[in-house]
């Protein structure tokens, strides 16, 4: 059997096992609603951070406006589920949010992705602030008060499945023709252009893809928390997503998973420390950045397929040239 099938099966088994593990722990009572809440927050953060990692880690574009795209998804869901308060309405609203986020990402991306580094960060930050200010002033979004009584249409399994789905999409995107093009641009945009890669097109593709997943996370956030306000999607929220990406390792999806989990748990555990919490949190960040500046995992990725292939090569059965 080809290594790719084996690897896919192992990943599927891990996903299903993880699901049953959480399910059992809830049934047994080890996971109470407090921990469940933490898990959902971690899940939403994973969706957000993998999308941002695609933009920052793979295409090398330093975007600081991720919360803006999340807001678009959240508000699309909050508004549509008011009229259509069932599962159909939720998934429809998620789709609408994704499409809106993609369109807005194209509109923002075309002018701003010409910029580099700090300039791009400031421009995307500004764009996300514009989204927030617009939401703050529209009637349909209920202004600064935000929207509440959003029907609770998502529980942890919904989040779990969507984490798996968006991660699968982003990882596969990053390891394909598109992914190679955007990574080439990250490495050297002049050389990338000299080998026939259109930098604008591919930078935009990564940006739009990241925005789409942020909208998915926003939709989940809206129906899980059930209350949203424009202030939930400010610059600090963009930065906290960025922290996950940087901490886990820019360019490592595995690292994003680890960092989102570590930070989520740390955040919850430290709640009993009161105001000291932010100090410890900040110290942990500083320490990791001092001793591991490339993030917890750098660019390392867990690959079950590589594991199989290595074994195959050792036994002389698999043709290593078939890899990638």
């Amino acid at each position, binding site marked *: 059997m080809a290594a*790719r099938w084996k690897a*896919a099966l192992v990943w599927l088994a891990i996903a299903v096992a993880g699901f049953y593990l959480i399910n059992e722990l809830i049934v047994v009572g080890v996971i109470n609603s407090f921990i469940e809440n933490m898990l959902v927050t971690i899940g939403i953060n994973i969706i957000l951070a993998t999308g941002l990692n695609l933009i920052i880690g793979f295409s090398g574009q330093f975007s600081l406006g991720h919360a803006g795209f999340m807001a678009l998804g959240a508000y699309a869901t909050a508004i549509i589920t008011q009229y259509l308060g069932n599962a159909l309405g939720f998934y429809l609203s998620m789709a609408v949010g994704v499409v809106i986020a993609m369109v807005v990402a194209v509109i923002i991306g075309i002018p701003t992705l010409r910029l580099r580094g700090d300039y791009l960060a400031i421009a995307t930050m500004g764009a996300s602030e514009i989204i927030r200010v617009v939401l703050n002033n529209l009637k349909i979004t209920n202004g600064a008060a935000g929207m509440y009584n959003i029907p609770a249409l998502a529980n942890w399994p919904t989040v779990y499945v969507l984490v798996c789905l968006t991660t*699968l*999409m982003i990882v*596969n*995107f990053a390891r*394909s*023709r*598109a992914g*190679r*093009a955007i*990574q*080439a641009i990250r*490495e*050297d945009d*002049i*050389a*990338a*252009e*000299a*080998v*026939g*890669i*259109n*930098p604008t097109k591919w930078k935009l593709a990564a940006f739009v893809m990241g925005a789409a997943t942020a909208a998915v996370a926003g939709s989940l956030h809206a129906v899980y928390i059930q209350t949203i306000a424009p202030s939930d999607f400010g610059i600090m929220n963009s930065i906290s997503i960025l922290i996950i990406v940087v901490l886990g390792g820019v360019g490592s999806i595995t690292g994003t998973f680890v960092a989102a989990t570590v930070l989520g748990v740390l955040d919850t555990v430290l709640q009993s420390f009161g105001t000291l919490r932010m100090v410890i949190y900040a110290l942990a960040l500083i320490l990791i950045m001092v001793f591991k500046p490339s993030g917890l995992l750098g*660019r390392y990725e867990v690959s079950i397929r590589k594991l199989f292939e290595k074994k195959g090569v050792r036994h002389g059965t698999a043709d290593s*040239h*078939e890899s*990638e």
Partner: protein
Amino acid sequence: MALLTVTNLSKKFGGLDAVSNVDMHVDDGELVALIGPNGAGKTTLFNMLTGVIPPTSGKITLTTATGTISLLGHKPYQVAKLGLARTFQNIRLFANLSVRDNLLAAMTHRYTENFFAEIFRLPAYYKKEAKVGAWTDALLREFDLTDVADYDAGNLPYGTQRRVEIARATATSPRIIFLDEPAAGMNPEETAALMKLIGKLRTDFQLTVVLIEHDMSLVMNIAERIYVLNQGKLIAEGTPNEIQKDQAVVDSYLGGGVHA
């Protein structure tokens, strides 16, 4: 048949005439060298030919199967798609990608992949990847890079990096390849290997080669025709023998006692 024709090409940087009124042509299958002292405008000329900087005036035309087209106003990636590949004076590899991925990235314009086939790993994706993977393997073998295929390109020795860069340019499936000082920093042994490699580009890949080089023994050995630039102007054109005897070239560049 002239594959690439340059007519009256000029580039001004402010008050400086980096390249002025250059006329040249490159025939199909030819190996043309561009020589001249530092600052003569060789790389500027390369940059104009590959679309990196727009010329101030003049024309660049490429003969294709469907007719003659002007290269002016084309972006570098469009020029690359038209079949003009290049290497850089200071090596520009995708340093953190493996050698294999460097080559794969250079092939992206030679095939398309459906977005949904990509993200859901449909059979069409594997079919495409197998095809492109076979192209890459063949290229790796041709350039003797199979052993280092999975190393990050940035960690390889200098001479190997040069070879990867030439392989990457070849991966775009070009008609003309522009090599900007490929022998710079190489020892005589590596230069000899490079000479063989350039020969291979012409025989095995049927490429037309345009070369900027300061290593005169290399140039005089392999070039069929030489253009000499000095202070932005073309001062001579001819076979290696003619160029070596040209008084203007000897005075401005080669100096007295060079017998390559």
